[in-house]
């Protein structure tokens, strides 16, 4: 039964909100910081406890908020038995770690950061276990990788810490990427990204062709996270973290995420041969290998780390068996492993903290000096070894029973024998932990004088080992219901298998295996010294070296690719780009789908043929003479003119007007720029390079010609019929192009004038920076060629432009006003008026014109955008969408009836922006000339002709 409850959202959000607390509270002192950090965790735990009774009755609590429904992504959470178990572990252990870390961290460690990272991590973990949406789960999954990176690398000054953090991030991050792929496939198979849907669709998923790829990808994510062979190597290196982090990440949370995922997905994915051989085998290998390495580790935390690897392997193997009973046993062992392993990590931390070493070879005899720590550590280790009366015994016994009944391939004994071997090694390293750290004679060479820590530090592990003993003696009463409900959630409903949580199961195969394990473990411990010598003498692969070499190889490869493609030469990038485009285009062209030609070919009159020849010759001339810059620039003008003529002929008067005026300002701009640039381009590229470029250019030209020819001969469905039909009725104009610009697609135009305005301002800003820098001094020293014209402002030109100016203005205004109904409009008008003013600058000089300019060009751009925007917003006031235009006809007696449309106000905005931007660009450029030692003219001409006449009269 599903119950809706908003508490779930609060629980999920609390750690993230709480992550802000440490930063605020750290100033109030360390104890206050730790106490306040505990608050959100404690509160979330309280809320969880309030939901628990419902879950224990077998209900599922759900809460969903739509987030991105188009992607199937929603903030959906659900809490069933498995989620409750994990959420309880995460929050409960989180609380204990908060307490422990308060005493563990030294005064030099930034505690606020630590608690922030811890809460972020806790929130991410919590998110994984209560997400109902697998996309959401993936987000939290990646968050755990990131936040654990911060936690593992918390001691930034230690190189091992940084390397361990990087390795953990690389391995778990790569696995996470694989898992994203797997989850997406899974969601595709089921048609829903909600876990509750996926979990009931197990049969559909297992029958799908995509089952195996999805399984492998998801398992990659789970195996890397849970440090399964061959990805187990990152976990020991993550031990460079502070012990509270190790205790939290490697007992209860991070590494359990992979196990959680396998348990969560168990109903959907388990039960096939592929699952059994992949998961159970990996688990089995990991269990034995981890235990073997743990036996020979001298670092306390490394021993515990490999023991964790081994136990994770055990859990993976149990889930891999694919039987319901094994899955329930796995759940039970998750609880037991959490209690003893967290306690042991904290014990190791206490030993490290008090003796200043974690090296087992330098320890021993601590039972007299640290009796409390000895008690806690011993109980934990005995449970880890699987000794009766402690909880580790119960689940290990059940595991052995399951292993004994499982056959691998044709061999009925392989799993049982290897599982016993794993148990045996586990006994050996657990006893070694007790014997070599606490037993033996007291030494006199500890790096620091050991004594028991304050109560606050041993309270958390003490509480945990209390749990170890209570569960170990009364399992059914203490955790029975929880195992039942969580196990039920793993196996996805249905009938629960028969099992009983008790110490004595009678004389079973598992009992014999246990006895063998304990006896063998004691033998190994006794033989540890010679075995240790042998272990160190034998060659074995070192994972870190392999990993580092692999990373170095990958980095070199990517650097090689980057440096080949991106060597700083833009001409190379462009060549690569053009060639790639050509290849893709060719593939598309030959891919079929080219239909029959449907349009007739239009005739070519002689005038057009002449224009075409002019255009082609001009283009070729520009290309061939591009080293002589002035010449090529002038010929470029011919190309623009021919293009305008083509637009006229091909029924595009607006385009022709725009092209010809833009052509004018572009050439002026380039001429101004060329004034400061070298006049010749030196020969730098060799023949081979030129041939290569020529081939690329030729092929591209051919391709575009073919493409355009192909589509010009075929008809197409166009939305323009709508524009043609509604231009007059809806937009109030007969020039459809203009109506499209200011009405149908006014939003586009609005964006485009803003871009143009920005371009103008960018140029202005660039010029300001340039002129205020060292460049301006260099410019002042410019030496001009002696053959420059001495008559900079010819009389004829000054007079002609003066006469032209009012005419040009009138033409501009006329073009602007007629734009709505006849070719013209704001764009063209802005350009025409700009040209009229530019002529004054050219004829009469910069200073003379500037002195007569009464407004700033920046302002024009701003006004233009504001006017256009307000016009659009005006439509909204009238309850219409942005930029809907309105129009009406007016008749004042002396003049003819005329039309006023709001679109004209918008066009005015366009006009102002175009005018302002063009002028600002050219004005900025011409300022360079002033700096560059040009003499400033106050008069329109360099010499006054009347002056000469008067002098002559005097003479």
């Amino acid at each position, binding site marked *: 039964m599903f119950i809706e409850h908003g508490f779930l959202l609060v629980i999920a959000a609390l750690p993230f909100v709480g992550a802000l607390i440490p930063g605020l509270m750290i100033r109030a002192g360390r104890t206050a910081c730790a106490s306040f950090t505990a608050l959100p965790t404690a509160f979330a735990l309280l809320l969880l406890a309030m939901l628990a009774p419902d879950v224990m009755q077998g209900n599922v609590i759900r809460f969903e908020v739509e987030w991105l429904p188009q992607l199937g992504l929603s903030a959906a959470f659900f809490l069933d038995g498995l989620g409750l178990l994990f959420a309880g572990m995460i929050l409960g252990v989180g609380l204990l770690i908060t307490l422990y870390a308060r005493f563990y961290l030294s005064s030099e460690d930034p505690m606020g950061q630590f608690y922030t990272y811890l809460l972020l991590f806790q929130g991410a973990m919590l998110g994984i276990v209560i997400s109902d949406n697998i996309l959401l789960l993936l987000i939290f999954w990646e968050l755990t990788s990131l936040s654990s990176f911060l936690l593992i690398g918390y001691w930034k000054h230690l190189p091992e810490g940084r390397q361990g953090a990087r390795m953990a991030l690389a391995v778990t991050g790569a696995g996470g990427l694989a898992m994203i792929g797997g989850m997406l496939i899974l969601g595709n198979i089921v048609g829903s990204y909600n876990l509750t849907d996926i979990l009931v669709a197990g049969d559909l998923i297992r029958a799908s062709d995509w089952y195996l790829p999805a399984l492998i990808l998801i398992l990659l994510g789970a195996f890397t996270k849970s440090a399964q062979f061959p990805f187990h190597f990152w976990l020991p290196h993550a031990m460079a973290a502070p012990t509270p982090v190790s205790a939290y990440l490697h007992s209860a949370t991070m590494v359990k995420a992979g196990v959680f995922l396998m348990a969560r997905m168990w109903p959907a994915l388990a039960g096939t041969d592929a699952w059994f051989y992949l998961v159970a085998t990996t688990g089995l290998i990991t269990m034995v290998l981890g235990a073997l390495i743990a036996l020979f580790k001298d670092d306390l935390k490394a021993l515990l780390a490999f023991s964790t690897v081994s136990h994770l392997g055990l859990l993976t193997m149990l889930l891999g068996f694919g039987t319901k009973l094994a899955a329930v046993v796995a759940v039970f062992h998750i609880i037991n492993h959490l209690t003893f392993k967290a306690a042991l990590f904290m014990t190791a931390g206490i030993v490290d903290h008090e003796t200043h070493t974690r090296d087992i070879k330098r320890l021993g005899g601590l039972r007299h000096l640290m009796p409390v720590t000895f008690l806690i550590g011993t109980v934990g280790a005995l449970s880890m070894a699987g000794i009766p009366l402690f909880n580790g015994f119960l689940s290990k016994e059940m595991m052995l029973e399951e292993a004994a009944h499982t056959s691998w391939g044709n061999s009925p004994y392989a799993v049982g024998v290897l599982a016993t071997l794993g148990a045996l090694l586990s006994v050996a390293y657990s006893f070694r932990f007790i014997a070599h750290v606490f037993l033996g004679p007291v030494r006199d060479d500890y790096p620091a004088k050991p004594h028991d820590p304050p109560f606050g530090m041993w309270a958390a592990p003490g509480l945990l080992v209390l749990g170890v003993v209570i569960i170990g003696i009364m399992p059914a009463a203490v955790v029975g219901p929880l195992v039942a409900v969580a196990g039920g959630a793993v196996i996805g409903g249905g009938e629960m298998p028969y099992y009983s949580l008790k110490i004595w199961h009678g004389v079973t195969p598992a009992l014999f295996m246990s006895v063998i394990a304990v006896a063998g473990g004691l033998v190994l411990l006794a033989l540890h010294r010679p075995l240790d010598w042998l272990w160190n003498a034998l060659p074995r692969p070192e994972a870190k070296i392999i990993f580092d070499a692999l990373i170095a190889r990958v980095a070199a490869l990517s650097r090689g690719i980057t440096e080949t493609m991106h*060597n700083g030469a833009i001409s190379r990038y462009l060549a690569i780009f053009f060639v790639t485009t050509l290849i893709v285009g060719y593939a598309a062209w030959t891919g079929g789908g080219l239909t029959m030609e449907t349009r007739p070919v239009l005739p070519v009159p002689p005038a057009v043929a002449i224009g075409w020849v002019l255009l082609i010759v001009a283009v070729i001339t520009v290309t061939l003479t591009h080293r002589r810059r002035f010449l090529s620039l002038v010929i470029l003008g011919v190309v623009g003119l021919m293009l305008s003529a083509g637009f006229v002929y*091909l029924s595009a008067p607006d*385009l022709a007007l725009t092209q010809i005026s833009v052509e004018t300002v572009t050439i002026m701009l380039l001429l101004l720029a060329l004034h400061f640039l070298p006049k010749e*381009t030196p020969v*730098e590229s060799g023949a081979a390079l030129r041939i290569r470029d020529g081939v690329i250019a030729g092929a591209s030209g051919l391709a*575009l010609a073919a493409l355009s020819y192909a589509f*010009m001969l075929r008809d197409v469905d166009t939305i323009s019929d709508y524009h043609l039909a509604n231009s007059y009725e809806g937009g109030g104009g007969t020039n459809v192009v203009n109506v499209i610009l200011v009405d149908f697609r006014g939003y586009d135009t609005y964006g485009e004038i803003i871009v143009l305005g920005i371009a103008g301002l*960018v140029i202005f800003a660039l010029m300001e920076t340039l002129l205020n820098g060292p460049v301006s001094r260099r410019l002042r020293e410019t030496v001009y060629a002696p053959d420059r014209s001495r008559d900079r402002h010819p009389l004829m030109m000054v007079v002609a432009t003066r006469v032209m100016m009012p005419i040009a203005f009138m033409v501009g205004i006329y073009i602007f006003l007629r734009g709505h109904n006849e070719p013209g409009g704001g764009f063209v008008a802005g350009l025409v008026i700009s040209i009229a003013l530019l002529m004054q600058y050219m004829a009469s000089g910069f200073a003379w014109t500037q002195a007569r300019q009464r407004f700033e060009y920046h302002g024009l751009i701003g006004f233009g955008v504001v006017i256009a925007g307000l016009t659009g917003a005006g439509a909204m006031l009238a309850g219409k969408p942005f930029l809907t235009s309105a129009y009406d006809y007016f008749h004042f007696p002396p003049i003819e009836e005329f039309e006023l449309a709001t679109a004209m106000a918008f066009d005015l905005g366009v006009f102002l922006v175009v005018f302002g931007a063009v002028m600002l*660009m050219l004005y900025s*450029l011409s300022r360079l000339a002033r700096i560059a030692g040009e003499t400033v003219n106050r008069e329109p001409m360099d010499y006054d002709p009347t002056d000469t006449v008067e002098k002559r009269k005097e003479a």
Partner: protein
Amino acid sequence: MEVVVASSIGVLTASGIYLILRLRAFPVILGLAMLSYAANALLFASGRLAINMPPVLSKYGEASYTDPLPQALVLTAIVISFGMTAVLVMVALASYLEAGNDEVNMDAPGTGAADEKAGS
């Protein structure tokens, strides 16, 4: 007529791409201008060619018109490409004035070519 337009687009493109692949800023700017012509013409041609059918509505009876939408798009494209050319010219100019040459390529990392060409 289609052959005329198509071949013009092709020649403009080829010239534009060849010039863009040159090593100095000024030919690159010329090439970009050329490529803008080609792109605008291509976009315009996507409305199919028509003679004597401007998209200005006639008051006198039925008439057929050419496709106005590509024209509107090309109109703004012409103006925007002017803005882009202007920014590019200014960047090229600034880099020339700062660096003393108008090469577009950075020297390949680690080749030491920078030392040879400095001062030119």
